[in-house]
């Protein structure tokens, strides 16, 4: 690393060379996150189609393969889909606002990717180890709704606008419950840094993960995450049986694909955050010999995959929520639960040392 830095400094002078080196190394790290992420997105769509197919006793995609290898049948499907989307024309409706119509998908994918900057993949592997990491993630995910609203308005279509309005109301209301659930996590960990949050869950076994003392918060956070990403059963923003495809009904080709990518990247992000905040991130479930030999990165991936399976399972199982039921769940169920849990948690944290030091509580406090 240092030698590359010196080459840069010799080429461009000390100050600008150092800056360009920082820029180049950051771009390299960013690509090292984004490229596997987008591949993950591609194969998540494949996993979704396969898993839902098996749940519905179908086979799912089973044609496209690589180099005619028979046991890889179906695995080429996401690549074929991507190529198909690239080839298609982006139709801009006549009455649409052209600038905002193109801007909307960009505004959707930008926060979905930017949030990954602070995600720690293992104890050392993190791009930006900032103090306010959790806040940064909240800020980034809350910006994702702009793409949806702008897309709905710029399309100049009633269906798109209805979808955008539904989505905006839904995302704004679930963000509150999500924020309160995160307040509980940071009360436990006393830190906003995601790495410190995982380190706070270190212990002998999975009993010391925040999953157990914060179990209701885990449920609230994960379900709010499903709602934030506009996934089934909260997908009223798309609601193909009611408003065709919601906010992206007028989008085609790559512009549509970008929305699609952002939705799946957000799903992976929510699963990753749930794994980091409640399931101990890169920590093994039991701190014993064969399990803690496996690199932390693998454990994190396994936890993400486990949680992503729930996203797909929900989609295959539950019918879509009615709009007023979504609002009721967010405002009248989740927010009161989270507020009560904050008070309970604060109470436990203020208990005298003698009580907190005893068995179940000494694992977490």
């Amino acid at each position, binding site marked *: 690393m240092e030698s590359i830095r010196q080459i840069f400094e010799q080429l461009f002078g000390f100050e600008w060379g150092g800056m360009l080196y920082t820029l180049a190394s950051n771009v390299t790290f960013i690509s090292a996150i984004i490229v596997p992420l987008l591949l993950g997105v591609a194969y998540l769509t494949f996993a979704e189609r396969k898993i839902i197919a098996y749940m519905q006793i179908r086979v799912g995609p089973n044609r496209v393969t690589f180099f005619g290898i028979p046991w890889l049948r179906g695995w080429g499907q996401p690549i074929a889909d991507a190529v198909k989307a690239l080839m298609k024309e982006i139709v801009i409706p006549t009455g649409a606002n052209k600038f905002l119509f193109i801007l909307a998908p960009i505004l959707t994918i930008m926060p979905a990717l930017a949030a990954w900057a602070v995600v720690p993949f293992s104890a050392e592997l993190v791009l930006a180890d900032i103090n306010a990491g959790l806040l940064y993630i*909240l800020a980034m995910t809350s910006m994702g709704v702009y793409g949806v609203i702008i897309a709905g308005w710029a399309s100049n279509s009633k269906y798109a606008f209805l979808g955008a309005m539904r989505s905006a109301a839904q995302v704004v209301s679930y963000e509150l419950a999500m924020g309160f659930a995160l307040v509980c996590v940071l009360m436990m960990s006393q830190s906003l840094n995601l790495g410190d949050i995982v380190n706070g869950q270190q212990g002998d076994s999975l009993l010391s993960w925040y999953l157990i003392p914060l179990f209701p918060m885990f449920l609230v956070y994960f379900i709010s995450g499903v709602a934030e990403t506009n996934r089934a059963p909260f997908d009223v923003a798309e609601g193909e049986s009611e408003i065709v495809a919601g906010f992206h009904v007028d989008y085609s080709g790559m512009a549509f694909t970008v929305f699609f990518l952002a939705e799946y990247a957000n799903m992976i992000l929510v699963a990753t955050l749930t794994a980091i905040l409640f399931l101990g991130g890169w920590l093994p479930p039991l701190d014993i010999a064969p399990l803690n030999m496996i690199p932390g990165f693998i454990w994190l991936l396994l936890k993400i995959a486990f949680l992503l399976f729930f996203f797909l399972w929900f989609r295959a199982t539950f019918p879509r929520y009615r709009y007023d039921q979504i609002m009721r769940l967010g405002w009248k169920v989740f927010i009161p639960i989270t507020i009560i849990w904050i008070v309970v948690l604060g109470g436990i944290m203020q208990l005298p040392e003698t009580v907190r030091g005893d068995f179940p509580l000494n694992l977490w406090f």
Partner: protein
Amino acid sequence: MNFQDFIFYFFSTVLIASALGVITVRNPVYSALLLVLAFVTCAGIWLLLEAEFLAITLVLVYVGAVMVLFLFVVMMLDINLEKLKEGFWKWFPLGGLVALVMVVEIAMIMFGQHFSLEEMPAPEPKTADYSNTKELGRLLYTEYVYAFELAAVLLLVAMIAAIALTLRHREDKKTLDIAKQVNVKKAERLRIVSMQAERKK
């Protein structure tokens, strides 16, 4: 000019341009979006001052929540620009006077003795483990706790007042009473009638 200065001037230019755009563009949706851009660039400038908590909170609260609702409302309104422009010149002298007073006030603060560049040097660079959030929290909940709680109560009152002012119960609206639905008994909905079996002739 080092890199930080470059970033500062870049953000400042974007901030001023977008703030001017907010009041000059004709399309109200563009105006709201430019305000979002102004908030984001302002957050960038605060980050340069190492106020990361305030910067991220600005994005979280104003960009993530307030402006979303604002944009939402602006998009649903059918704004007639001709009508808005009526009476512009009539109110111009009053508006101009208010603007002038504000400029003078800001200038008095900016160029006064307490806020000159010598009085307010750039903050000392902090060590990596210094947490802005913790410091702010400590101050808010110890030294300024009464002011903080008062502000919270003020917001709560405003929130309840807004709900009370807009909540109307219409007799003809068709909403579901969920408690009623859950508590329904079989006897209220279902009537089992015993009938003689009929035979076709």
